[in-house]
């Protein structure tokens, strides 16, 4: 009885059911489109697990998502909603890319400098919104949306500047200098048979552990959670709510900025001009939700999303629209969202049974 209850109380149980339901609905749509779900899902699984190098690609895809997921999860835990991770990710990537192209330094200095600058850029981008909220009472969701678009156009503007733009390189920047890249040494990459294998995933896991420690084991984390839970109560307990909101948003923004740095210095090596937002920040919301806003959960949900994204990109080979991944992910989030009521129902049912 006790064991059964603990299963029904656990987030993981509902998350797994939601994921299964998402795949079932995805299969229904594949059938409607006249595509065999077995073929499409088979291709999806094969593209993730078929070869060891596919798994490394999954890790590469997952790294920036774990960072944006952590960013959003941290904001959720501290009572603000960072819908601006998208913009912070973009300015982080932009900063890392620009410094990676313009500066010529030894790798020991170049890499940390680019990473720290990207985190600072994400933090500043988020703190401006925090200051607008604290000083002028402006709704953070509104200013985050504005700052996402400002970051988007700023990035497209910088990509086209003469010092950054690659001559005849289409709509992309020059390549980041090798001294700023986060790639594994060439020998290791050859051995792994994966040209973009990089330190990003290790940084992401380290960041998740650090954030877990901050939230669960420090006074700072306790204060931030208290403000998120009840800002008036926290104020009464002598916690400066304004400062807490700013601290929370600053850390959250820095995490998203780091995600941008990992994407540019790790996987892509350059910045492209985009027609629409890339969506790493919005995908971070999903990662945070599937990971139940827990930093450790974000590692697993980030890996899941990274796998789906990488596997999904190969679906066109079997003529299945890769957008089925969006449908599955959308359903997963929806089912996680409505799982709360089942928890309440099961709890009530359990009580009656106990009598």
């Amino acid at each position, binding site marked *: 009885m006790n064991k059964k209850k603990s299963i029904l109380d656990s987030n993981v149980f509902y998350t797994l059911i939601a994921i299964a339901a998402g795949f079932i609905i995805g299969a229904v749509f594949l059938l409607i489109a006249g595509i065999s779900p077995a073929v499409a899902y088979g291709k999806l699984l094969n593209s993730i697990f078929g070869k060891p190098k596919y798994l490394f690609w999954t890790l590469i895809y997952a790294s920036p998502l774990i960072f944006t997921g952590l960013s959003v999860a941290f904001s959720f835990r501290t009572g603000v909603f960072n819908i601006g991770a998208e913009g912070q990710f973009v300015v982080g990537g932009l900063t890392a890319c620009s410094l990676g192209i313009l500066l010529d330094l030894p790798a020991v200095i170049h890499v940390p400098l680019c990473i720290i600058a990207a985190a600072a850029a994400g933090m500043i981008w988020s703190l401006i919104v925090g200051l607008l909220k604290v000083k002028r009472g402006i709704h953070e969701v509104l200013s985050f*949306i504005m700052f996402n678009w*400002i970051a988007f156009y700023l990035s497209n503007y910088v990509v086209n500047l003469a010092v950054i733009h690659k001559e005849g390189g289409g709509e992309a920047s020059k390549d980041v200098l090798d001294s700023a890249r986060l790639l594994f040494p060439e020998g290791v990459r050859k051995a792994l048979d994966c040209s973009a294998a990089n330190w990003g995933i290790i940084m992401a896991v380290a960041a998740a552990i650090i954030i877990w420690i901050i939230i669960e084991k420090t006074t700072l984390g306790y204060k931030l959670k208290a403000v998120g839970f009840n800002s008036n109560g926290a104020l009464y307990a002598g916690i400066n709510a304004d400062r807490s909101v700013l601290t929370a948003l600053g850390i959250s923004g820095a995490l998203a900025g780091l995600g941008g740095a990992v994407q540019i210095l790790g996987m892509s090596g350059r910045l492209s001009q985009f027609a629409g937002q890339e969506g790493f920040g919005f995908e971070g919301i999903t990662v945070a939700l599937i990971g139940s806003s827990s930093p450790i959960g974000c590692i697993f949900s980030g890996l899941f999303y990274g796998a789906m994204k990488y596997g999904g990109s190969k679906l066109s080979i079997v003529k299945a*629209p890769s957008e089925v991944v969006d449908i599955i992910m959308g359903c997963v989030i*929806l089912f996680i969202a409505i799982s*709360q009521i089942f928890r309440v129902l099961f709890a009530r049912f359990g009580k009656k049974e106990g009598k």
Partner: protein
Amino acid sequence: MDVIIKDLGLLINATLIATPPLLLAALGSCFSERSGVVNIGIEGMMTIGAFTGAVMGLTTGNGWIAFFCAGLAGALFGVIHAVACISFHADQTIAGTAINFLGPGLAVFLCKAMYNNSSDTPAMDPSCKLPKLFQGVFPAGSFWSNVLNVYSVAYLVFLLALVCWFVFYKTKFGAHLRAVGEHPEACESLGIDVYKVRYTCVILSGFLAGLGGAFVTLATINQFRPSVIVGQGFIAIAAVIFGKFSPGGATKACLLFGLCSGIKTLAGQSNTVSPNLISMIPYIVTILALVLFVGKAHTPAANGKIFVKSK
């Protein structure tokens, strides 16, 4: 002087074309938010509306039928959001995020399934699109001809803004929806069916967002592409917060965004300033306007909170 007047006409025209999709979505968002349900899924609802509009325009050849069907498609997503948020007590932000994945995902998925793996629908014949009013009434190239070179739906949309204002402040339903968003428990004790009011408002917001999306595919351009709705849904939400959650305020905010978008369109044709810098203007103007003039918005008190019926 003539050139300036002509350009002014073109600018007003560009504003009148850019505003209606935002305004439709924003009016819908007003209903939802004021009744106490946060709807950040507007973007997804607009995209599915844009797709449905294009497909129905291509198949029926009648712009008006297509426009209406797009509203129904948006409303269907409104139903999903309403069921999740109201009956299943889901977190409204999370459910909205899900809609933002489902809407665009489903639209492009179905488009590829229907049109030979292409993410764009074929272009529509002008006769399938929504008609223009005042065509050929004024001499070509004159100020009024430039200004009024607008699809007839645009006028209806501005009329609709007026209707929404009337519903909000002059009808019993409007009073109920505003009250339900502030203090649902009190409303329930007075015998108002909170769930019914909220369901109506959320489904209506989906319907209007669907129409907004279809305006883009059936009037502004003539086909569906994955990039037709990029951020308009979020801009509409911003306009609602900017306009302090009232239809009148949202209308003014949408006109401001529309004007900025119009400036962008016209300035983009000359190559003196980077179009990317011009594109930033609306967002910077919004922030400055908020800091300098508007200040704190009163969010409906029960917005985003789960309300459980007491039987």
